[in-house]
């Protein structure tokens, strides 16, 4: 390239480059229709916000992203350790050190499937819906089987270790089982601290039907 042209050529090149930038989405988007869209893009274009449930719910957390596969195993070993540690760190133990509430209120929470759906009233407390997946009281026959039976859970006793383990498991099950199918009842704000205490009592109180 001759020097005489250089001064002119630079701004020209820049403007050509800018034009290319402005134009680039067109051929690209034509190619994109053959390119697979991300699952998130498809969900977003296929859903509408309804009542109190917005499209932000489609955005995944790092944990959800890592667990979105057919094995329920985080592929990357280093990430696995990080996520599990994060889950453990997420657990907030009760401020007053008291783990056990009222088992009768806990029973109502365990049977209540309402909460956080677009047809639920956001002003009413959420349920825990434990019975959807777990057997608890032998008197309740309408229990699900996705999770293990928790019948007689209280026979494990009420040692500090047992209380902490159970609390953490309900708060964020990924602390023990990464990619668990169970919701993060504490971490995701599904149940309040008092509700968690009541569910704890339902599991651990010797007077609870779970342990009869």
């Amino acid at each position, binding site marked *: 390239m001759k020097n005489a042209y250089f001064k002119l050529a630079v701004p020209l090149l820049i403007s050509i480059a800018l034009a290319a930038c402005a134009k680039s989405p067109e051929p690209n988007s034509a190619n994109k229709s*053959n390119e*697979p*869209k991300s*699952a*998130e893009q*498809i*969900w977003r*274009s*296929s*859903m*509408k*916000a*309804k009542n109190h*449930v*917005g*499209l932000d*719910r*489609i*955005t*995944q957390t790092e*944990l*959800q*992203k890592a*667990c*979105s*596969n*057919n094995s329920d195993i985080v592929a990357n070993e280093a990430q696995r350790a990080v996520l599990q540690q994060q889950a453990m760190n997420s657990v907030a133990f009760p401020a007053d050190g008291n783990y056990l509430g009222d088992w009768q209120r806990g029973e109502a929470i365990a049977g209540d499937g309402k909460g*956080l*759906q*677009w*047809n639920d009233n956001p002003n009413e407390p959420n349920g825990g819906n434990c*019975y*959807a*997946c777990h057997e608890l009281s032998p008197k309740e*026959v*309408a*229990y*699900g*089987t*996705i999770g293990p039976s928790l019948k007689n859970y209280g026979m494990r006793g009420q040692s500090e270790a047992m209380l902490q383990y159970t609390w953490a498991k309900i708060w964020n099950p990924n602390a023990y089982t990464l990619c668990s*199918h169970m*919701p*993060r009842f504490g971490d*995701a*704000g*599904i149940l309040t601290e008092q509700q968690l205490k009541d569910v704890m009592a339902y599991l651990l109180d010797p007077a609870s039907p779970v342990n009869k």
Partner: protein
Amino acid sequence: MIIKRLPKLKVIGLCLGLFGVNSAIAQDDPFAEYRAMMGDDNPAIFVSEEGADLWQAPNGPKQASFEQCDLGLGPGIVEGAYAQLPRYFADTQQVMDLESRLFYCMETLQGRSPEEARKKPYSSTGDMGTEIEALVTYIAEQSTGMPIALPQQHPLEIAAYEQGKSLFYYRAGPHDFSCATCHRQSDKRIRLQNLPNLTTNEGAGAAYSSWPAYRISQGLVRTMGWRMQSCGRQQRLPELQPGSEAVISLMTFMGVNAKGTEMAAPGLKR
């Protein structure tokens, strides 16, 4: 003339109160027993009749019926169409399920606006049924006994399956639920409701072949699209739109997994 009442008298709902009482029965799917008792009797027959009328009736600004609507096997061919949907359509260059295809025919053949076509595809509680529900019931019934055979030829049909698979495992929302949370294991249930494993031929076949279905608890026919929208709600996600890309992709994933199962819709469900 002798008129005699034969002892075959059935009333839906007489035995509904028995459900959930006995756990031993619950293990063995009490509803299968109920269905057997009902035999061929399914209130959906009336919805199907209504759908057949709607298929033939002129409608919309163009006063056209659906009889030129191409469901994949040629204009107006209904028999066997449901068992091969979703599939790729050259005219829209898209993979479409039955509901999105019906919207398309409402717009192109009948001249109805997209808003009007999509106004109310699914009944609310207490409603008497919708046009889409009746049409889907009629069209699905014309595939009864035929094996589910979704085409996987066109690149977009193959892409829809892959997309459906990735949507199936996508975890999101406050509960971290994906479709797979409930539908990837066999022989599991929520409360007393058995869950089909949609990743297996058996589970996907049982689910795919039985929708649309008359839901006795609601007194209505519900479509598979409606069922998917309910799944999305239970996942705590926003409202899944009928005929949307996610629905079409997930249906393709299910339908291809269900390959060969004989269609048995309209079904009869709880």
